């Protein structure tokens, strides 16, 4: 199992920040997932061994955190917030629109592997609602038209 140099540098550095090895687990799982695409059996075993944990202990942590996934997502994970602040100003309509436009259900991935659609809980953009995150990038004060533009941009970016 090979990670990038950046990952290894970060891993080594973060180990020095805590009195126990397993403290690096949550952030490192997220960085590993960003690199590999999902938390595969191989990633889980590798991190478990490095942190002197069992695979089960690592899986137990993964299942708690909503950003962590053992199933691959599309290149762009479109996370539409429908929590209260977004709901009041059209978050649900945005989600419905995305479902139609992308032709997938919640947590579904387009056949070309470009987009995954996910309904998410509050992303901390309440004053700029309705908002979405595509991977880690925020897109705020959206309308259906703006949403189309955002998706088209990613579509272009992804095919280059």
């Amino acid at each position, binding site marked *: 199992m090979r990670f990038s140099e950046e990952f290894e540098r970060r891993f080594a550095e*973060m180990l020095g*920040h*805590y*009195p*126990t090895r*397993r*403290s*690096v*687990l*949550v*952030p490192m*799982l*997220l960085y590993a997932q960003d690199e590999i695409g999902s938390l595969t059996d191989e990633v889980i075993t590798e991190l478990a061994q490095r*942190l002197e944990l069992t695979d089960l202990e690592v899986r*137990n*942590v993964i*299942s*708690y*955190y*909503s*950003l*962590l996934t053992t199933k691959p997502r599309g290149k762009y994970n479109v996370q539409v917030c*429908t*929590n*209260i*602040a977004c*709901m*009041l*100003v059209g978050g*649900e*309509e945005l989600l*419905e629109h995305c479902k139609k436009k992308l032709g997938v259900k919640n947590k579904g991935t387009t056949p070309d592997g470009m987009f995954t659609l996910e309904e998410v*809980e*509050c*992303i*901390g*953009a*309440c*004053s*700029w*609602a309705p908002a979405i*995150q595509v991977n*880690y*990038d*925020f897109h*705020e004060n959206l309308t259906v038209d703006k949403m189309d533009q955002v998706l088209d941009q990613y579509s272009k970016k992804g095919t280059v």
Partner: protein
Amino acid sequence: MASLVSHPDEVRVVSKRFGKGATNIDRYLELDGYKAVQKSLGMQPDAIIAEVKNSGLRGRGGAGFSTGMKWSFVPKQSAQPKYVLCNGDESEPGTCKDRLIFEHDPHAVIEGVMIAAIAVGSHTGYIYIRGEYRYLSIIMQKAIKDAYAKGFLGKNIFGSGYDLDIYWHGGAGAYEVGEESALMESLEGKRGIPRIRPPFPAVVGLWGGPTVINNAETLAAVPPIMLGGAEWFAGLGTPKNGGTRLFCLAGNLNKPGVYELPMGYNLKKMIYDVGGGIPDGRELKAVVPGGSSTPVLTIDEIDVAMDFDSVAKTGSMLGSGGVVVLDDSNCIVKFALRTMKFYRHESCGWCIPCREGTDWLEKTLKRFHSGGGVMKDIDNIYYLSENMLGKTFCPLGDAAAMPTMAFVKKFRQEFEDHLEGKPCPFERTGKIEHLPVYA
């Protein structure tokens, strides 16, 4: 990047460097940066704690506990290392203020952690930022690195002989981790399951050591207090509610945004003046005053001073500063359902009343909203919520129960309008999943 707003009534204390390039450490230094920590290094720890106590600063995460008091609970002598932990796991629906602090003024948070550490005799601090805020963790990591490069962190800070390390830590998506004991579990690399208290974190916290846990906004308010003085800060707000607060105005408003207003600012004015009122000629229906866990206020209750004690008198809470405004086109049952869906999703399942209660309530509210409700459900929803209160390790159970009870109590008529097969009178799309009526 989140856009900034302004209003003449704002008093900028925590937000004074927003939009001024203070992520750059040299710019931060020009704008009074790292002066408060140097002043604190020359003070007795007890004097720092007294200053913060006298300032009337209360926890901005939502509980509103006196910050100075919290610090004073940390034992002077400890065989275990002591820690300071900054809670930047902002996830209460309606709240988006810490995001701006991290984006515009990360060094203020670092400086706040430093002062807290000096006050309680800790040599290690952590700044926990939620996983969704990746761009902010990048900003924070750079800020910490810059502070080390200047010699502000590490060994012998500012030549004082005091050693202090501060590290960044990241989450991976979990509302419950915003609760202090779950936050510590998460930082220790575990599921964010809350711990039973007592012992409180101030005595037994991270890895068993005494730990001070404060919200990012609380810590960012500490440097200005140390520079401006407790009296000045206390005078900005109302008695026992010192300072200002970042209010996140959201929902059906003409000018939503994050505004820094004095503690005790009138809610009605906040909605109609600062927030620009309700758009599209609609009328105000209800306000959630401090994040999704705080009981809703009706239009008759909004003439209230937004400080911890005044809002508590209405039976609600000032909470995390997330003011969510609903206009009269919205259905309260649907709003209650969406709120409960969130708590059901976020419940960790450790405590049975919360795990089962949120699930049962979501199912009942869903059936209710789709016209499958019967009269006895209304009392059942209330009764179920009531029986979750105070029966869980962490306040997530309460956070789900309190707003639900208020929705039923204050908007009972609207629940009755949904009874037995009636379509939701507010549904915009006309697309509701219809479920059978259970007699």
